[in-house]
């Protein structure tokens, strides 16, 4: 068993005090984490109310996603997967958009022009070649930006995990690849994915740095990600980082984890290794935080979410014409003919109603 890189232990004690940021920064990060958690939990509630589509929760992985994403600077690129709503929000995606996205609303799928976020990828591991390509492009253009991309530990068994990391390594392209090892690929435990004890060890086979990090320690995550981002920015190529973390929630809103993992296990993580808890313990121990602060912060988060939700709710229902929009930049005659069929279908259903 290797010891993952850690700054703040699960019990709120600081294992590397010189690496801990000042308290106001700790607080600011904590505030972000609580907002993320609130967002994530509310989407589950909405789902249960049939006001949300299938949604893959990230609850439990806030430190992993936030800590890494905060290592990016303005103009950097994020190549997210479905689990990364937390990272996307940290990157600047608006909660309103995220709600619309997971509702399957075209307005939510429109990535804002000012956000260098590549599309969220459902097709496991295929975001890595995109990230590698974008990073290669940055290098060819001589730009200072970097690309950050995430994958689950299950995703590391896919061909495209290897293809992407290796491509970036061959090109010495400015990419940072993060494996969020949350223990399971839906029901399949980490041990079934590979004979490797740790996945970060793949790094050596690409000639790049590899790191094992306590993924529930937001400061450790941030510290290592920052190192990797800076390295990439200096033109020294990609890194591969493994975050040891845990998905406290079901795989998606439709999943029941009881089928494949014990309550005791989940409880252990929830009660003792929650990434938010240790920061709160630290802030509290430092006399910087109390129940009142917490209650206010939660209220704030709730109000913010409610505002975003209200905006999302106010968005007009999707227009069927969105179905053919953006299919092609210069549509073929066949697609144009299908546009007429779409009009006809709209009329047919209207007539039926």
């Amino acid at each position: 068993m290797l010891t993952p890189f850690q700054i703040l232990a699960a019990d709120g004690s600081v294992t590397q005090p010189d690496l801990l940021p000042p308290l106001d920064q700790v607080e600011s990060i904590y505030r972000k984490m609580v907002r993320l958690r609130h967002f994530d939990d509310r989407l589950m509630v909405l789902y249960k109310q049939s006001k949300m589509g299938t949604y893959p929760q990230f609850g439990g992985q806030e430190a992993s996603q936030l800590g890494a994403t905060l290592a990016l600077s303005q103009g950097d690129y994020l190549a997210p997967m479905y689990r990364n709503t937390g990272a996307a929000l940290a990157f600047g995606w608006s909660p309103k958009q995220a709600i619309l996205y997971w509702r399957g609303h075209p307005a939510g799928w429109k990535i804002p022009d000012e956000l260098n976020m590549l599309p969220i990828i459902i097709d496991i591991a295929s975001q890595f070649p995109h990230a590698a390509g974008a990073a290669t492009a940055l290098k060819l253009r001589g730009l200072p930006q970097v690309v950050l991309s995430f994958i689950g530990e299950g995703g590391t068994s896919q061909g495209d995990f290897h293809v992407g990391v290796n491509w970036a390594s061959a090109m010495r392209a400015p990419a940072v690849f993060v494996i969020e090892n949350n223990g399971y690929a839906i029901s399949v435990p980490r041990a079934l994915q590979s004979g490797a004890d740790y996945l970060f060890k793949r790094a050596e086979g690409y000639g790049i740095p590899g790191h094992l990090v306590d993924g529930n320690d937001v400061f450790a995550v941030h510290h290592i990600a920052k190192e990797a981002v800076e390295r990439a920015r200096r033109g020294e190529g990609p890194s591969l980082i493994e975050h040891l973390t845990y998905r406290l929630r079901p795989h998606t809103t439709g999943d029941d984890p009881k089928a494949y993992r014990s309550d005791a296990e989940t409880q252990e993580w929830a009660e003792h290794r929650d990434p938010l808890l240790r920061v709160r313990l630290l802030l509290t121990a430092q006399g910087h935080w109390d129940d009142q602060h917490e209650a206010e912060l939660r209220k704030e988060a709730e109000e913010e979410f409610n505002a975003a939700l209200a905006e999302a709710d106010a968005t007009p229902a999707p227009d069927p014409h969105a179905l053919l929009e953006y299919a092609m930049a210069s549509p073929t005659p066949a697609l144009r003919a299908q546009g007429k069929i779409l009009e006809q279908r709209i009329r047919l259903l209207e007539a039926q109603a």
Partner: protein
Amino acid sequence: MTQTVQPAAKAAPASQKTMTLAAALTDAMDLALARDPNVILYGEDVGVMGGVFRITTGLQAKYGKERVFDSPLTESGIVGSAVGMAALGFRPVVELQFGGFLYPGFDQMASHVSRYRYRSRGRWSTPLVIRFPYGGGVNLLEQHHDSPEAYLAHTPGIKVVIPSSPKDAKGLLLASIEDPDPVVFFENIKLYRSVKEEVPQGYYTVPLGQGRRVHEGKDVTVIAWGAMVQTCLQAAVAAEEAGIGVDLIDPRTLVPLDLELILESVAKTGRVVIVHEAVRTAGFGAEISALIAEHAIYHLEAPVLRVTHPDTMHSPFNAINHYSRPEPAYVADAIRQVLEA
């Protein structure tokens, strides 16, 4: 070679049980595992969890981890390893989690599953089954609703099976597992639990290559598979009330295709509508239309129409996807058009 009565239908009603399509599939795999020690099941989440749609539920508990197991998360590995497994005499029945995730395994499918026997001149063969849920109408995520049957029908050396009812599903899956060639087995997500019917208990097969006349009529031939059979059946029933006879044909297997049944119907009606939820251009509807244009041109009295998904990805905009995915109203409209033509 067409037969609309299935072998098992001869069995006594006592041995029937009302089942969903999902349950019929589980039953089929249970029987196959019990019958042939060479049958093994694997894929993502098929073991402990019984698959995301619970189609393999209980099978690992019953047959053990050596015969029903979770694999690493890689479609190329699942499909590619099955080639090697088959070489050692296994009959792997592997699950891909969704048809939209077939593509990372496409090279293994198109270059190897389909060619291994040809390439080795019979020294190795690939009697394996690749199953996956596919199709729209259920509000899942992007790529969960693809209908990739045309890619597979265009890949020589493999068979393509798409049941539309529980009874067919069970018999066709058992026939697929028995088949000496590789079979890709499509399981429509929407049908998994929405249709129920009496399913014969025990082992039986529905032969590959025999279509089924789902509704009889003399005015228009409608050809559809998977969930579109239900969609078209609704249109056919409505048409009947309006005095229009729809001959609804479910080919059940696209490769081999029961061309005889289709041509027989076209000879009778002279009018054809083909319905699929896959993308229009170069979909399997085109092949059926082309076969009709080749073999039944003199019977045709109207343009052959296709009601399909447009040429876009299956959108994640679930609230409006019924404008993309064929609805009974669109089929009815196409029927009207071929009748008026």
